């Protein structure tokens, strides 16, 4: 079955739904488009589960038990030169199958959730067409077998996130956020494109398999790429770092993270799907896809990944502690968790035991998708209920929203890394890998884990505990409650997953080199992080359980630091300064001015010169007969002299 074309159905189903709802949605399908979208995703999910089952348990392993890469099919899409061509293909290997399961599952949950959340929305059909477009491009990205194919779906994911963030396009802030998201990711995609060009040129191919094989084994391609260097850094490192920049842009790593908080302008289910579970992990997936090249042939690039990852996670964790908008807190927590995945990949070696980091990162990706989507959907329910994003207007909602409260609590425990929940296992692996390979990174990771626990429970207490019944919630009776069943089912399913997923022996399925990786669980090592997490929770409890002014007092005490973190370390302002002042005024305006005055000026100048010259010549025809006669005579005389004396041919 693996070689059959059914797997191609997984991305094509959402695409079909996109076309259907996009073209006919507005007039004919209306609410039916929601059901259509959900059904198509259900089918896709079932297919991917079946493929996963068959791959992992029946025929995925080759002779000596290694999961080999199966190319379901490959079709040349655009032939550049003999060796190099973009071909649309589907590759099945542990991480791609894991990813399609995650994407289809989360997308299914979001589809069900938004049937309730978006009910009564005027552009309901367009919303579902954009959602299916996004799912199609994400699945295409995940199954890509050609580096250019991944770039194509990379752009499509970018555009669909632009359309979804800017869904409420009559809100100027939404349009600005959408533009910002697209332009920042586009900037990073530029790096990705140049990275592809470099890698393609030196490896002579665009196909992942051949590219990895050519760059990891010592052959003439490998020597060519490491020989060529630019400014002291080998071309391979340049290529990989640039590709990582593309990934960093999409996964909102440090320099390119500015768009993620603003992306919360979009509807909450969109944030749950795109900015929590799927799109933002595309960067991690890309690095994982090229992992053999990263780790075997180009360690410096891996270091870059590690440091960017660890710095982003700490940086985001600090900012998250002071944000008041709950969706922004979750956005920064996503950024921090992806930082975890990145540096997990960074510290990991290749193959066998020291491939632990790779397995841990993928495992964390898997678990994080579950509970982060749950957090966002829960936050969505709260916002839906309170009609505001700000923590200040919330508090004491545990009674009016029981299910959301429990599911939200489970998710917070999971993300904080408390033992029975999923987060604990994946974070444990990451910390173990970090401990084994890179001590300083381990220390920072531990601290960030503690901070994560703190801000997550700060959020939890502020929403569900803190102030008792707030007066403006008198409108209890209109039975708004926690929203319809369609919103609660996904929450509960995800909550169950957030608990259960941790127990999957991930090592058996996903590992850096395909061989099984059994990780024994030693309580002694995991004691430290759990204690740190509990202390974080207690601190949050201390500050926010009751509505007391303690947290504000601490805020004044910290003063400058507090304001800096609240203002997101002024990164946004710096970027605005750069784009507004530098790009627009120092480059754009002069370019337009030069074009208008200098280049155009020269053309007009040549016109005026011709004009003036003809104006100067005009008086010669003065009408005075004698003047003409004089010119005539002088002319005749000079020609006579010229021809007689000077003409020597």
């Amino acid at each position, binding site marked *: 079955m693996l070689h059959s074309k059914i797997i191609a159905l997984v991305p094509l189903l959402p695409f079909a739904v996109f076309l259907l709802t996009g073209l006919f949605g507005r007039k004919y399908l209306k609410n039916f488009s929601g059901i259509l979208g959900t059904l198509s995703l259900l089918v896709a999910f079932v297919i991917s589960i079946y493929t996963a089952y068959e791959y992992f348990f029946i025929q995925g392993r080759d002779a000596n038990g290694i999961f080999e890469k199966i190319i379901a099919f490959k079709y040349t899409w655009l032939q550049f030169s003999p060796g190099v061509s973009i071909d649309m293909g589907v590759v099945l290997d542990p991480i791609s199958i894991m990813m399609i399961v995650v994407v289809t599952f989360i997308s299914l949950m979001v589809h069900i959730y938004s049937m309730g959340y978006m009910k009564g929305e005027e552009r309901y059909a367009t919303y579902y067409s954009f959602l299916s477009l996004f799912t199609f491009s994400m699945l295409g990205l995940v199954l890509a077998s050609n580096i250019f194919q991944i770039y194509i779906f990379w752009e499509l994911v970018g555009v669909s996130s632009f359309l979804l963030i800017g869904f409420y396009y009559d809100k100027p802030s939404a349009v600005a956020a959408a533009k910002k998201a697209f332009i920042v990711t586009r900037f990073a995609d530029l790096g990705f494109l140049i990275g592809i060009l470099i890698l393609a040129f030196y490896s002579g191919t665009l196909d992942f398999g051949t590219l990895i094989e050519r760059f990891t084994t010592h052959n003439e391609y490998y020597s060519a790429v490491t020989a060529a260097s630019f400014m002291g850094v080998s071309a391979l490192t340049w290529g990989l770092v640039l590709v990582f920049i593309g990934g960093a842009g999409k996964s909102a790593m440090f320099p390119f993270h500015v768009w993620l908080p603003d992306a919360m302008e979009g509807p909450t289910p969109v944030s749950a799907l795109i900015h929590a579970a799927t799109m933002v992990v595309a960067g991690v997936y890309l690095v994982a896809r090229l992992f053999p090249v990263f780790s075997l042939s180009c360690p410096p690039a891996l270091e870059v990944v590690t440091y960017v990852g660890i710095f982003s996670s700490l940086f985001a964790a600090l900012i998250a502690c002071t944000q008041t908008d709950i969706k922004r807190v979750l956005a920064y927590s996503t950024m921090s968790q992806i930082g975890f995945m990145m540096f997990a990949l960074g510290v990991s070696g290749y193959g066998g035991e020291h491939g632990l980091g790779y397995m841990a990162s993928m495992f964390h990706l898997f678990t994080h998708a579950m509970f982060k989507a749950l957090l966002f959907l829960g936050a969505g329910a709260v916002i839906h209920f309170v009609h505001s994003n700000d923590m200040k207007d919330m508090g004491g909602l545990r009674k009016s929203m029981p299910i959301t409260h429990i599911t939200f609590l489970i998710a917070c425990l999971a993300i904080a890394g408390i033992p029975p929940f999923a987060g604990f296992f994946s974070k444990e692996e990451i910390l173990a890998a970090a401990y084994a390979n890179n001590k300083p990174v381990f220390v920072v990771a531990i601290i960030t884990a503690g901070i994560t626990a703190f801000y997550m429970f700060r959020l939890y207490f502020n929403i569900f505990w803190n102030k008792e019944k707030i007066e403006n919630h008198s409108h209890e009776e209109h039975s708004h409650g926690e929203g319809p069943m369609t919103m609660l089912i996904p929450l509960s399913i995800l909550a169950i997953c957030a608990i259960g997923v941790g127990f999957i022996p991930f090592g058996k399925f996903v590992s850096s080199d395909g061989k099984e990786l059994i990780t024994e669980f030693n309580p002694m090592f995991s004691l430290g992080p759990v204690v740190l997490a509990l202390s974080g929770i207690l601190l949050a409890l201390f500050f926010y359980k009751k509505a007391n002014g303690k947290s504000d007092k601490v805020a004044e005490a910290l003063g400058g630091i507090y304001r800096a973190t609240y203002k997101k370390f002024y990164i946004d302002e710096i970027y605005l300064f750069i784009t507004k002042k530098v790009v627009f005024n120092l480059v754009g305006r002069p370019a337009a001015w030069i074009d208008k005055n200098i280049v155009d000026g020269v053309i007009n100048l040549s016109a005026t010169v011709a004009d003036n010259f003809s104006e100067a010549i005009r008086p010669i*025809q*003065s*009408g*005075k*007969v004698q003047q003409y006669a004089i010119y005539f*005579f002088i002319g005749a005389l000079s020609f006579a002299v010229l021809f007689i004396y000077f003409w020597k041919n």
Partner: protein
Amino acid sequence: MNAIGLPQILVVSTALFFIGVYGFLTRRNMISMLMSIELILNSVNINFIAFNKYLFPGKLDGLFFTVIIITIAASEAAVAIAIIINLYRKYKSIDVEDANSMRF
């Protein structure tokens, strides 16, 4: 002094020619311009006759040319004066500077 040959005559005719040119270019009065033209034509006649006499005694072409030039000069003078009179009627002066309406 030796006998008067062709060069001496040519000197006279060239002098006459350039005096005519000077007259034509400087005189402000149309009629004096006409007179200078007559001088130029006469210098040409002298040349024809001199060449006919000294260089081509065997033929009379030079002579016939002179006759033709004389007739043309006569007709040209007639027409020129008619135009001058007409201009005079229009411009009330025959100063050549005034007749510059045909210009840019």
